[in-house]
Structures are given as C-alpha cells and as structure tokens.
C-alpha cells in the first residue's frame, strides 16, 4: 500500500480480484460501507459473496486490490484472521458453527470481548462484569432458558441465534452475517430481521442473503453481485426494477 488512503468508509474495497485456477471468483470488486450502515448483499450462487467475506476476514488473500478498514487505517490484506477479528470485524458463517460440546454460556464466554492471548486466558476468572454482559446477551438472543445446554443440542434456528449472539459478544465495529435465515421458519426469519435491525443501532452490518422477502424486511441499501463484481446498487425496489438484475438473478 502506498501510504494510507483517505476514506470515510468503515470498509473500503476497490479493484479486488481473486481467482482460483483461472476462475475469477472476484473481478475488480468495489464496495464502500459507511460507519453505522447496514447493507444487504444479494447475488446468485457463484457471484462471489462468500469469497468477498473470506477476503475481508483474512481467510483468502486477494490477487490485486485494496481492502481497508476503519477509515483506511488498516490494510486487511496484510493481516491474519485473529488480528482482523481483534480489530473489530466479526463473522457469522453460512453453516452455523458453534462449539458443540460447550454449553451455550461457554460459547458466549469464549466470544466475549477480552484479551485473546494465552496467559491472560489461562488466568482469566469469572467477574460480575462478565456475568452482566452475558445476561444482556442472553436477553438479546433469547436463549436464557438454554444457558447450560450443550450447544450441540440446540435446534438449527437456535444455533443461528447463538452464533449471532457470539458475534455480538465480540462487540465488533462491523458484523459480517452470511445467510442468517437459511433453514429458518417464517416467524424466525421475521424475528431475525428485527434482531439485526436492533443490532444495527450500535453496529455496522453486512448481510449476505438469498431470501428476498428477508432483504425487503430489512429495508436497507442492496448491492447485487454477479460474476465477482457489482451489478447494481440501490433500494430493493430500484434493484428489482433493474433489467440486468432481473436477467441474471431475479428473473430466473
């Protein structure tokens, strides 16, 4: 990077390309997320949504392009997953992944914002402050009655919520949420939209989702990805009216 770029954006992607064995998963992708914004990302399978998440969280290194965080202060292409997580980017995976043999409470305890290095973790003790934070989280994700249940025993929807709770526990500046309502009932989908809106009051959020009804429910700016770059951007009504979007995605 040639000196810090000046950008107001919380997350700044420009000219990002990634190819796997000649297949261009991302092609000159550009995306700006403003502080406090919630953005929905839609696109057909293979549009590059998950690869984009991988690039932002340090799992995949882009071949070219800039990925900057927090007003251009941090170049994410040079940092590893743990560092990026500590900078304040939390990620929820498409397939819910929680620590199955831990209790729900221990899952949240592990995610709670606290020093992450070996020796502070070895000597960490339960504090009243920690308990208060946990109580707050249990109230948000509504899993209070499952506090001491092994996470492996939760239903699919409950695991999704636990994972969102783990994201919140990290208190990240930016939450990346990959398909949060996959496999949920309509009622759960609605509640999840409400939850994300509540979270958005204090955090910036990027939601990747297939479910158009859910995206409409969120009522935020939508970015449509296609073949690794941005095809259209705007309100849900604007992008649904876009002829190219209809062709590649909505019309099928």
């Amino acid at each position, binding site marked *: 990077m040639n000196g810090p770029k000046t950008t107001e954006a919380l997350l700044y992607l420009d000219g990002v390309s990634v190819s796997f064995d000649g297949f261009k998963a991302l092609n000159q992708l550009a995306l700006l997320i403003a502080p406090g914004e919630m953005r929905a990302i839609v696109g057909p399978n293979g549009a590059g949504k998950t690869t984009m998440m991988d690039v932002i969280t340090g799992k995949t290194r882009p071949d070219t392009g800039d990925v900057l965080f927090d007003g251009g202060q941090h170049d994410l292409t040079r940092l590893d997953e743990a560092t990026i997580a500590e900078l304040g980017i939390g990620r929820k995976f498409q397939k819910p*992944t929680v620590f199955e043999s*831990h209790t729900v409470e221990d899952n949240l305890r*592990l995610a709670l914002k606290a020093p992450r290095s070996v020796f502070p*973790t*070895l000597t960490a003790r339960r504090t009243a402050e920690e308990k208060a934070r946990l109580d707050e989280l249990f109230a948000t994700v509504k899993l209070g009655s499952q506090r001491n249940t092994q996470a492996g025993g939760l239903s699919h929807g409950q695991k999704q919520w636990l994972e969102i709770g783990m994201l919140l526990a990290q208190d990240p500046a930016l939450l990346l949420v990959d398909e949060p309502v996959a496999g949920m009932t309509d009622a759960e989908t609605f509640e999840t939209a409400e939850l994300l809106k509540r979270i958005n009051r204090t955090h910036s959020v990027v939601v990747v989702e297939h479910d158009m009804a859910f995206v409409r429910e969120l009522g935020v700016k939508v970015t449509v990805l296609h073949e690794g770059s941005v095809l259209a951007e705007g309100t849900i009504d604007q992008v649904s009216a876009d002829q190219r979007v209809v062709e590649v995605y909505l019309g099928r």
Partner: protein
Amino acid sequence: MIVQRLAGRLGISEIAFIAAVAGLAVLVPLANLTMPEGSLLHVSNATVVLFGKWMCYALLALSLDLVWGYCGILSLGHGAFFALGGYAMGMYLMRTIGTRGVYGNAILPDFMVFLNWKELPYTWYFFDWFGYSALMAMLVPGALAFVLGWFAFRSRVTGVYLSIITQAVTYALQLAFFRNDMGFGGNNGLTDFKDILGFQVQAQTTRATLFALSALALLGGFAAAKAIVSSKLGLVLIAIRDAETRTRFIGYRVEHYKLFVFVVSAVMAGIAGALYVPQVGIINPSEFSPANSIEAVIWVAVGGRGTLIGAALGAVLVNAAKTWLTAAIPTVWLFALGALFILVTLFLPRGIVGTFGSKLFGHRWSK
C-alpha cells in the same frame, strides 16, 4: 487459592483417583519395607518397580491426553519426549558412576573409553550435577516440542499430517541415537547405573522412594493438567479441537494455544521418562520406537480421551494386561493389543471413563 479453585471442580471419580494414587504412594513403599517377606501384605521388590513403571506410563498417557483429548493434536511421537527426559536422567546416572566403571575412568563413561574417546563431548557437560540434569529432562523435550510445534502449527499442519510428522521425528531420533558417534551410547544406550543423589539405585529403599515420587509426579501432572483444562484456556482448547476455523475468527491465535499445550505436555512426558529410567535401570534407542508412541495412544483411547483420569487408568490397565499376557502367552500380546484397539474404537469410542464414568461417578465428560 489454586487448590481451592481446583477442588471445587473435581468430580467424584477424580477425587477417588487422587485418593487411590496418594494411597498407593504411601502404602506400597510401607508394605514393601515394613512387612516381612511371605506375609500376605508384603509387596515384592519386583512389584514395586513394576508399579513405578506404570505410574510413569500413566503420566505419559496424561500428557498425551492433554494434547489429543483436549486439543485434538494426535501426537504419534510422544514417546520421543519421554525418551529424551529418560536420556537426560540416564546421563546423570552415567556420570555419577565415576571410577566404579569397568575402565575406572573418573570422567568418561565406559562406552566412551571403549570407543577410544579422549574427552567428554560438550553435550555431556554439567550432567554430573543432578539439578542441571533434572532441568534438562524438562527443557530438552520442551524445546523440541517448541521448535516442532512452532513450525507445524504456524503452517497450519493438522490432523493426520501432523501425526505423521511426530511419528517421523521419533523414528529419526531413534535412528540418530542408534549411532555411536551421537555420543549417547549407541545401540546399547546407557546402563549399569550405580547411584542417584548418593543412594544406591538398586537398594530397596531407593526403589520404594522412586515409586512414591513417581506417584506424586502423576498427581502433580494431574493437578497441572486439570488446572489447565478447567480454566478458560481449557475452553479454548476444546473449541480448537471441535471447530478450529471458528476459534480463529473469534480472534484466538490458534497456533499459540496449540504451542502452549504441546510444550506443557512434552515437559510432563519428559518428567515421566526421567523417573522411569532409574527404576528400570536402562535407557536405549528402543524407547524412541514409533511402536511405543502408538501404544501410548492406545492407553489413552482405552481409558477415555478428554478425561485425564481415563488416560492414567488406561495406561495402568493395558500395561497390567501386557505384564500378565507376555508372561502367560507371549506370542499373543501384539495381536491382543491390536484387537483391543479395534474393539475400543468400534464399541467404546469414548473409552472406559468416557463411557461409564458419567453413569457410575457423575463424571462430566470433557468439562
């Protein structure tokens, strides 16, 4: 404070384990030293040595369970750390022989005189001092684990690839220690020990003391391992075992955690080896044999990984069976061991304590 924190977290089975090992540490030496031979309560000298060996094996199993059962690192080379600890102790025992050796050389051990060496290799310096040797018995295995783990975990080598690397390391060490010019006694290893800290190695009281020390070391190892796995760091280890990528995205530097627990485990294995050698009276390259490391894995699997006490129990049970079978029908032992591993994998995948512990003693698995 630490004791208090620990005590609150012990299950009934763990308290029983501590009581049993502590009881053995006192009763076996007593029964050996004070009861007359022929009495029902007498424990023979051979039995004391045998039990002492089992205590060392149990500590080795415990150290393996810490990395495998809790962090998912299947080390197939843990015998190497055990053997290195054993060699460090063996070198001390060799240097204290002094002029009582066959060649009567005050500085050089017999095998060096035999090989026509004129001076002591620098690797043997200071090993005439017990404190230094004891330190090396922990430092050398710890350092090997640190270097190996540093490269392997940083490069994210996991699963079967890591197992193969650990296996290769112990095999390479075995071949290296076989060589005379390595300076560790080659094929024959180190033996003919005379005394330890001024006490005759073969004396009944020395052996009884070594047994008691081995039992105490097992308890110490258990306390350390239990403190680790019941801390928040223990939660992170299990998280790594079950969902490594997820742990990383939450912000934990997985490689540092693995390195920490791998080094702690190697040091424990080294201590076990150092206590083992004065009791059996010999250390040679066969201790590095890959088969030994694999046997240790079987002990842990049989007893129940991720339970700590299961690992120790497995080590004792399998070795008791080995002692009995190799005396009764020696040809059958290896087949029996193989069959045991297959049967346990098929029918008791969580091992004895993992399967029955929760029912019988209210032991909470992997907590």
